[in-house]
């Protein structure tokens, strides 16, 4: 079974340009998350999709970031225009939905990440 895949693995762009990161979750996983790690710091939550709906986007830094999950399958995260502080590794993760009444316990399957460097 394929794991969570992310593309590109590394992107180098100039300040002001646009970048789109893509994530393909594990097949059948309704929950899809985006996290980001700035160098040397903690991994920070960005947002959570359940199928195609945004369940929680409280971690999105500002309106330069746009995440979509059309059809409830793969997701894209677009940064436009990119700033220097957006550099970091963007991780996507997925998990199966739990049964009614159960809650997700945080056991996520992470992709290898997309490293973004903004010059």
């Amino acid at each position: 079974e394929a794991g969570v895949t992310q593309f590109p693995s590394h992107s180098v762009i100039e300040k002001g340009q646009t970048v789109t990161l893509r994530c393909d979750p594990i097949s059948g996983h309704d929950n899809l998350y985006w996290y980001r790690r700035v160098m040397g710091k903690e991994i920070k939550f960005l947002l959570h999709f359940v199928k195609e709906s945004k369940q929680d986007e409280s971690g999105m830094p500002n309106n330069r970031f746009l995440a979509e999950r059309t059809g409830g399958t793969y997701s894209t995260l677009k940064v436009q225009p990119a700033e220097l502080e957006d550099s970091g590794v963007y991780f996507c993760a997925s998990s199966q939905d739990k049964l009614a009444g159960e809650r997700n316990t945080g056991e996520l399957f992470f992709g290898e990440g997309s490293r973004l460097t903004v010059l």
Partner: protein
Amino acid sequence: DQQVKQNSPSLSVQEGRISILNCDYTNSMFDYFLWYKKYPAEGPTFLISISSIKDKNEDGRFTVFLNKSAKHLSLHIVPSQPGDSAVYFCAASEWDKLTFGKGITLSVRP
């Protein structure tokens, strides 16, 4: 303000000995605590978790201890093996959101 803290950036232990990785948290609403392991150029991999209603969970060489009154948890690896060398992230869950610490780099010397 960091809600999950891993105050030691690195730890070096001899193969065969015990590794103890510590983590502190501030948010009393966290109800699950997890440890993730990360190798370079890979994503974090789930290692072990513990519910807030328990104080210990064991899985093979890995044991996580939770002290709710002290808001402290620790991961014990025994015996440590060179393949355990990686970055270990402590994480806490509140509903569907994980809050991570900065990670600790464990080096196991042969």
